[in-house]
């Protein structure tokens, strides 16, 4: 019973945090510097790892599809398979998982440490709402940066697939043919589908990590526990949410 109550408490406090962050949204111009800092952290510093992983995910997809196509049929559909898989599923999920591991853990650690070392209390005594200064700019930044990261992941993944498709002996299809099937059978709706997912995942990951950080109690040991909890919870939420968002969008 206790874990169930704890989950409900967590959901309740996360929703409360979201409402409070929305309340402070009009103060964004005052927090513009912090918003830019967070865009830099979420976007720019995450970009290299997103690019590397997307490239190889696209490559592996093309390789596996090529392997299957050896016996099954037309190889030109490899482009479509990589294109759709990246756009609708793999890019948003991969970016969200990276966000949870790289940014979510950092957010949880920073806020938990601020809570444990009374910096959050200090803000409250200064009549500066911590949500306005620490949560709202992060949420806006993730909403802005997630589509950018996801589109880059899509493009790099497609490109990785195209290179593998061209230079692998048993596939050997030209990029023109690879991208032609992609253009023919995919539309902007497929990309949008992925972007909607990415927005949902990114927003929830940052919200959950902020909430866990801000509700940390105890000593320095709890900071590590908060980070673990934030990352594990985020990963579970991404996969559960993926199913429901996919169902809702299909």
């Amino acid at each position, binding site marked *: 019973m206790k874990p169930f109550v704890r989950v409900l408490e967590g959901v309740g406090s996360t929703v409360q945090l979201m409402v409070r962050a929305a309340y402070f949204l009009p103060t964004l111009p*005052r927090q513009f510097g912090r918003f830019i800092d967070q865009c830099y952290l979420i976007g720019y510093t995450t970009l290299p790892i997103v690019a590397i992983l997307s490239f190889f995910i696209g490559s592996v997809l093309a390789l596996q599809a090529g392997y299957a196509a050896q016996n099954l049929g037309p190889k030109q559909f490899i482009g479509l398979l990589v294109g759709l898989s990246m756009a609708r599923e793999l890019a948003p999920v991969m970016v969200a998982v990276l966000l949870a591991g790289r940014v979510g853990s950092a957010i949880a650690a*920073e806020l938990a*440490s*601020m809570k444990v*070392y*009374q*910096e959050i*209390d*200090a803000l*409250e*005594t*200064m*009549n*500066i709402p911590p949500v306005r*200064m620490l949560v709202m700019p992060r949420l806006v930044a993730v909403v802005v940066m997630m589509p950018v990261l996801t589109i880059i992941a899509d493009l790099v993944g497609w490109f990785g697939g195209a290179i593998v498709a061209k230079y692998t002996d048993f596939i050997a299809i030209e990029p023109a043919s690879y991208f032609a099937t992609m253009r023919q059978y995919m539309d902007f709706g497929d990309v949008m589908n992925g972007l909607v997912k990415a927005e949902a995942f990114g927003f929830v990951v940052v919200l959950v990590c902020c909430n866990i950080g801000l509700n940390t109690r105890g000593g320095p040991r709890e900071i590590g526990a908060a980070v673990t909890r934030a990352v594990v919870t985020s990963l579970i939420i991404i996969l559960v949410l993926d199913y429901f968002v996919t169902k809702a969008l299909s």
Partner: protein
Amino acid sequence: MSESTHTTNPFSAVQTPAVGVKIQHLSKSFGTVEVLKDVSFEVQPGEIFVLMGPSGSGKSVLLKHIVGLELPTSGQVLVDGKDAAAEETREQVRMALVFQAGALFNSLSVYDNLALYPREHRVGKESEIREKVMRALQILSLDNAAAKFPSELSGGMRKRVAIARALVMEPQLMLYDEPTSELDPVMSATIAEIIATLKEEYHVTSIVVSHDRDLTLAIGERVGILMGGKLLFLGNGAELRAPKDPKIADFLSPKIDVKNPRFRQLET
């Protein structure tokens, strides 16, 4: 020490009425543990009130009630006649709490730590904020520390920066949580002098939580002693020097008895 019912702003010299604090039958429990038990006392506008007591007696919890960080289980805390738990009180009365460990923002420089409050509350242009911050640093003899980060400061400097940050808020009520803990005797005396000077020059109502007997006797105009969550003593320095309660006498001047050590009598 001179009495005044008006607090002087250290930056503009504008005077505002000093605020008082009234604790009425305050009790606080965390789960089944009762930390504060029916505590009542009053702090007069413009005075330095020192709250003493052994570790774990509820002093810091009481301080958190005054700034509204904790809500009473029962009873009431009034600051300038207003409920301390109400959010409006924090907007109407400028209160500053100097935390035991400083609670400086580690990601910000000393300058930005001090500038945070005026920037967030938009109390002036950046040039005015700069002037105010540098003046606060000057008052605390920290002129050369502006560009440093909290991790580069000594314990004493951190405490002084925390006091300077509180000063920038132009407080009507200053609260100090163990301001001399972990400091050497000279630095402890320096902090005590700072608290007394701020009171003397700006007439800020000050509540100091401490178990430093020397600091209490040197600057405390009135003293309260909390033990086990109860207020066992309320009086002035002279009364504190000759306590009637043996528990308080033992707390103030504990005798070291190696043959019958206290830790063997402590509850586990």
